């Protein structure tokens, strides 16, 4: 089915897809309504997208912090600068690793389930049923998931960063015997609230928008077949990873 379509319209398919995604986002935003019901539904979606992602985020964050500290401690100790380990850890976490890894993990854990859910609703004609009942599925189904993702990603980034620092602390302090005060003191001396931490959080907000936008978009436009939903789910992960990495480069270049 998709090949037949591509044969008839082979040109600029990627650009058209991008335009469609943008129009879709505009349509969702223009139809947004904030009611008591919406608030509860958004909170429920934060549970599904955020709380259910906690295990993978915390595990990944802890081990990223641990391994990053392990490697940088070894490398920096060769120059007699082992004390700078915590600085390196905090800077690379806040500025790059925290937002990027969280966004990609989020796409894998929560983005896919959002896409599959909306795609299956499309395939089983639940969205059409909502339409028939004069309930706007964009407002009822898409909007809470979009907003929940935009809130959950920065929250997960914060938790990721905190656990990764903890992982670094475990290695540097408990295994290598760095002084706790040296560990925190070096971070406090070099990491700036606005320039390092704040810019990283700005990035995470951008990644949150991208990750949840792509997830709902691919779910909404999924072909109403088993194969179509499977394809859409895969595309969510691939597209989010590529866009996040590209956007990361652009935002880093803008902010530095």
């Amino acid at each position, binding site marked *: 089915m998709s090949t037949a379509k591509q044969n008839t319209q082979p040109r600029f398919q990627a650009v058209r897809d991008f335009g469609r995604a943008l129009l879709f986002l505009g349509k969702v935003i223009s139809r947004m309504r904030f009611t008591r019901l919406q608030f509860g539904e958004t909170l*429920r979606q*934060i549970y599904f997208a955020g*709380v259910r992602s906690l295990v993978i985020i915390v595990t990944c964050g802890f081990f990223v912090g641990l391994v990053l500290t392990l490697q940088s401690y070894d490398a920096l100790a060769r120059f007699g600068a082992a004390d700078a380990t915590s600085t390196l850890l905090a800077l690379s976490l*806040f500025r790059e690793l925290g937002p990027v890894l969280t966004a990609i993990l989020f796409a894998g854990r929560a983005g896919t389930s959002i896409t599959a859910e909306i795609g299956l609703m499309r395939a089983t004609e639940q969205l059409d049923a909502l339409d028939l009942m004069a309930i706007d599925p964009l407002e009822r189904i898409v909007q809470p998931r979009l907003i929940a993702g935009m809130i959950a990603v920065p*929250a997960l980034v914060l*938790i990721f*960063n905190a656990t990764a620092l903890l992982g670094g602390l475990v290695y540097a302090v408990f295994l290598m015997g760095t002084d706790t005060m040296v560990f*925190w003191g070096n971070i*406090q001396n070099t*990491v700036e609230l606005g320039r390092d931490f704040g810019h990283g959080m700005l990035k995470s907000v951008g990644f949150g928008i991208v990750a949840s936008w792509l997830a709902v978009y691919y779910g909404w436009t999924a072909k109403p077949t088993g194969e179509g939903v499977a394809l859409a789910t895969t595309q969510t992960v691939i597209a989010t990873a590529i866009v996040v990495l590209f956007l990361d480069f652009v935002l880093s270049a803008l902010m530095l």
Partner: protein
Amino acid sequence: MKSSHQIELTAGIFLLLAIAALIFLAVQATDRGVVTGGSYEVTAEFSNVGTLRPRAKVNIGGVTIGTVDRIELDPVTFEARVTMRIADRYDELPDDTSASIVTAGILGDQYVSLEPGGSPDMLSDGDRILFTNSALVLEQLISRYLFNTEGGDN
């Protein structure tokens, strides 16, 4: 499947957890800001600031009392004018204080080190430190040593 009440509660706890992480990271893992309260500016002119940059530290005896705010070139004298922001609680610096640009270690960052003098008059906002020592530029030192000349501008 949990009840919707429980789900909302868990989502609320999740957001509180994120806020706790935000406060923890913002307070524990970023600089406290040397100059948090009030501050005042003093300037000093150097013939060479080396690699001194804005936000470099200003020390007295190794204790940080402020930061370098900006570095500009005086268009008339062609000297580098370094504006420093010093915390208000160190407002009793004598006006014959001298400033030098030194390096932390061999490869470390450059910072401004102040040496208080003995004058009874104090520096106030906008004042200029008259006695300065420029940054040591390693290349100039080496060339002076190699060619045994009196070269260099300081």
